[in-house]
């Protein structure tokens, strides 16, 4: 029996060591976090098959914050999203054409509204970091609460654009709606 007891001990030890959870990272800068969140948003969003066929690259466009773009490029080399390679393109006053996900940093209301109107009925997941972005017709915006990054989703805007946002994303988000705010 003794060897078996030894074997059991060894197995218990193996299980204990093997299941030790990696420590979650405690702190990061806002651009790093935004980039990581953007990849997760892409992961939990479904685009129409005509727009994003199987195996096609996912195109993320970033306007306004080079640090987010740089981090995204770095992250995209390490992982895929929905088994797709991710391409990151910084844009400047370009239209949303060719983008599957568009991140808009800053407010710049006039330009932003022009872009949101251009993207309105196109299947582009629009994400911003201004607090009013989702209410102003965008789909997702970041906000910081208690030193943590949070996000708000406007499911109506996503639905109109033909995007399906996973319930996992909606569950963690603050839901906003232009209609209920009378906008």
């Amino acid at each position, binding site marked *: 029996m003794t060897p078996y007891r030894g074997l059991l001990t060894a197995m218990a*030890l193996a299980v204990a060591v093997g299941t030790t959870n990696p420590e979650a990272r405690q702190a990061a*800068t806002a651009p790093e976090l935004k980039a990581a969140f953007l*990849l997760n948003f892409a992961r939990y969003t479904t685009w129409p098959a005509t727009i994003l066929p199987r195996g096609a690259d996912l195109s993320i466009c970033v306007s306004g914050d080079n640090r987010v773009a740089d981090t995204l490029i770095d992250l995209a080399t390490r992982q895929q999203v929905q088994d797709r390679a991710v391409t990151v393109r910084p844009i400047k006053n370009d239209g949303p054409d060719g983008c599957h996900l568009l991140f808009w940093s800053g407010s710049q209301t006039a330009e932003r509204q022009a872009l949101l109107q251009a993207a309105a009925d196109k299947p582009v997941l629009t994400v911003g970091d201004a607090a009013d972005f989702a209410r102003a017709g965008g789909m997702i915006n970041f906000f910081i609460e208690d*030193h943590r990054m949070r996000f708000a989703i406007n499911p109506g805007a996503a639905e109109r654009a033909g995007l399906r946002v996973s319930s*996992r994303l909606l569950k963690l988000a603050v839901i906003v709606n232009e209609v209920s705010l009378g906008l």
Partner: protein
Amino acid sequence: MTSRSQRYLLCAALAGLPLAGAAPAQAQDREPKLWQASLEELMQVRVTTASRRAQAAEDVAAAVFVITRQDIRRSGLTTLPELLRLAPGVQVARVSASKWAISIRGASRVRSRSLPCGASRTPGHTRLHAARRPARIQTDRSSLGHRPRTQPARPPSSGILGGAQRLCRLDDPAKRTPDAALELLT
């Protein structure tokens, strides 16, 4: 006997394998792995400033300039606004016989809001605190015998301190410090 020792060897090997495999994995875990974090984990991560660690506003890096007691004595100056001129980057303008306009980094006005500062009440007390309203420094109340140690701070160019701070009142009638010294965070 042989078979038993073989079993022991097997146990030892089984015990050793996961340990050997886990060691490098755990070393990696200490490194940033933002790209592997789930949404829930990301929502627990603390947002930090560019210095890449969470810190209090008073600890944010700022240039420091100290006007010592000897400097004050040698200068022969008798009022605090004039003494502030000794520090680089501090703009001091006399508006009238009793009013001064002081600011750090930029043009000064009487009601300048660009100079955050805290007057420390005890030696060694360095905490920054914002005054509630802009100061108009009165020359008759700002003679050095009445001054506590004073620490204006010029925020780093990135403006981490933000706009909440105000030009503070430099007088503290309750405290008389015979060995006045100025400590300027510029």
